[in-house]
């Protein structure tokens, strides 16, 4: 759902106007609820310059109700360093939450229940319960539940402590693309959840670069006594969006039997094209051959490898080795 496209100065100024009005409607009750608040505080909380604040104050001064005699006007001013607003009893209580604001609170609040250092306090759960009660006459408790991802070993707590304490961490990591286990000493910068998975963003001495490590691929972890100084590390581009490393290749498969839904759901394919025989030609970016073989094993006979052709023998080899575990040999002679 996207907003209708509009161009031109008229729309831009209408946007700015709504922003200003939105800010005023929230600022007036906020200042009244925080007597003694300073110019600096208001500017910081509302993200405006001192000049914009003074402009807002002048604006409020000329507002009021009919017939606009002096007693009917609102009062706003700066006394010393303090911002004062009065004579606006009808604006004392803030405007109700918009649907977007309500959703922000409930979504962020419930997601945060899974974040160490934030969610483990009982105050968060009780705050959410109170907020949800005001959102509807029905008790909304339990109506929205977010689970970022399972973390059965509870690694994110240890890593969070390491981030705060600036301690190095040794991890045994099972990399999906290489299908091998490595032991690494990392300097963790941030723990975060993205797209339903937990990651740690850290400086990896083995790679001599920053890396994202998925927590469900960490076999074991120990927080070391060695500490590190983040300012001594090179600048990282912490955009918190783990993308596959450069390299990889394009995998093309022909699939049948309604698997398109599954693939589109989970893999974000580059393209899906319907074919005359009812199958679909799907193109996906594969980060490594190991990863591609893993995917093809799951798709099984419903997938025909189109490109690269030399993957076929690798997939067949993997299937044969697995069949041997079940006591089934496919070799002749």
């Amino acid at each position: 759902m996207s907003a209708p496209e509009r161009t031109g100065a008229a729309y831009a100024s209408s946007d700015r106007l709504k922003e200003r009005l939105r800010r005023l409607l929230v600022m007036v009750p906020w200042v009244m609820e925080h007597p003694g608040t300073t110019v600096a505080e208001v500017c910081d909380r509302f993200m405006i310059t001192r000049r914009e604040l003074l402009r807002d104050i002048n604006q409020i001064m000329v507002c009021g109700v009919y017939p606009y005699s002096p007693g009917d006007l609102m009062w706003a001013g700066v006394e010393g360093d303090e911002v004062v607003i009065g004579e606006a009893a009808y604006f004392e209580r803030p405007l109700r939450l918009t649907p977007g604001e309500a959703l922000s609170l409930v979504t962020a609040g419930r997601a945060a229940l899974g974040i160490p250092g934030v969610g483990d306090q009982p105050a968060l759960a009780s705050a959410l319960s109170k907020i949800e009660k005001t959102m509807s006459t029905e008790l909304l408790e339990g109506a929205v539940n977010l689970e970022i991802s399972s973390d059965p070993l509870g690694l994110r707590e240890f890593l969070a402590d390491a981030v705060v304490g600036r301690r190095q961490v040794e991890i045994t990591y099972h990399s999906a693309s290489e299908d091998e286990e490595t032991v690494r000493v990392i300097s963790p910068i941030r723990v975060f959840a993205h797209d339903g998975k937990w990651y740690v963003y850290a400086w990896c001495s083995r790679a001599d670069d920053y890396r994202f490590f998925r927590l469900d691929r960490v076999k074991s972890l120990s927080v070391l006594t060695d500490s590190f100084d983040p300012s001594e590390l090179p600048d990282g581009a912490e955009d918190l969006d783990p993308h596959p490393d450069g390299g990889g290749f394009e995998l093309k498969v022909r699939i049948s039997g309604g698997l398109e839904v599954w693939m589109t759901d989970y893999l974000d394919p580059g393209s899906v094209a319907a074919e005359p025989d009812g199958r679909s030609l799907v193109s996906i970016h594969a980060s490594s051959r190991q990863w591609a073989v893993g995917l093809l094993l799951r798709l099984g006979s419903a997938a025909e490898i189109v490109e690269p052709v030399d993957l076929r023998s690798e997939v067949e080899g993997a299937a044969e080795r697995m069949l041997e575990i079940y006591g089934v040999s496919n070799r002749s002679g």
Partner: protein
Amino acid sequence: MSRVERLFDLIALLLKSGRPFTAEQIREMVPGYDQPNQASFRKMFERDKAALRELGVPIALIPVPGEADGVEGYTIRPDEYRLEDPCLLPDERAALGLALRAVRLESGAVAEDDPRYAGLKLSLPGYDATELPPVIAAVDVADGRVAILLGAVAERAAVTFEYTTAAGEFGSRSLEPAALGNVGGHWYVAGHDLDRDGRRLFRLDRIAGEVVVGEPGAFEVGERPDIPALLSAGPWAIGGKNVEVEIRFDGGEAWRARNLFGNSATFHDHGDSVTAVLDAAEPELLIDSLLPFRTTAEIIRPESLRRRMIEHLAGMLP
């Protein structure tokens, strides 16, 4: 006279007076509506009302008491305008403020400023914007239907939509929604499915197009489904009758098996191997999760599942 001033005065008038005013009275009493003719005033007034509604200001049009029938005026009821005070304690405010900082909502249904304004309206403490907390979560709320469904859950209104199941079946569905969940980065809605007369779970990204919301108060809610719990047992656990499944793993892979099954399986240590025993309503769905283990996992029982795995593997050979 700026438009901001006019709008502010309009809100102040309607909020303070408590009685409805007709459009004509508003035109006289609020400066800035001095338009040359009726038509241009009307147009200006309509745009103003639309702007206020977008900001969440509840302007209602009601009959004016004491006037002839059919004469209507505009009003803002203070109890509709005002944020109901949730009476948060200081530590509750602090916890909620921290939550808004630690969770990044990837926008769409939520505008970029919404979390900040929610914090300001509730007088939550501010934080240093330049310092990121050690742990952050990003939650995708790009899908506008999340907000719509939350509204339907709150109002107890039934919803209808077009849906494609995981098996690829497409059709129209009707639901009495009781809970929303976000697990593994995907949004879900669960409730009583009116066509199938049972509890069902739907993934939002398989809903095609709009969600149509019915009348409020259409049903009663019993116990709300716990969506993360429903999904935590794995897709193989949702369904009817359970079958007991036993799988052997090489000792070195035990940690991955525990990651996969969590508490839904019992583990037995056999020295250099480990077995997992669990209940599955749809055992075939386990195959997909076991394939990544390659030769380090073996299905022991039931025999039907072993055969299914062998069939799957053999099907790939020429």
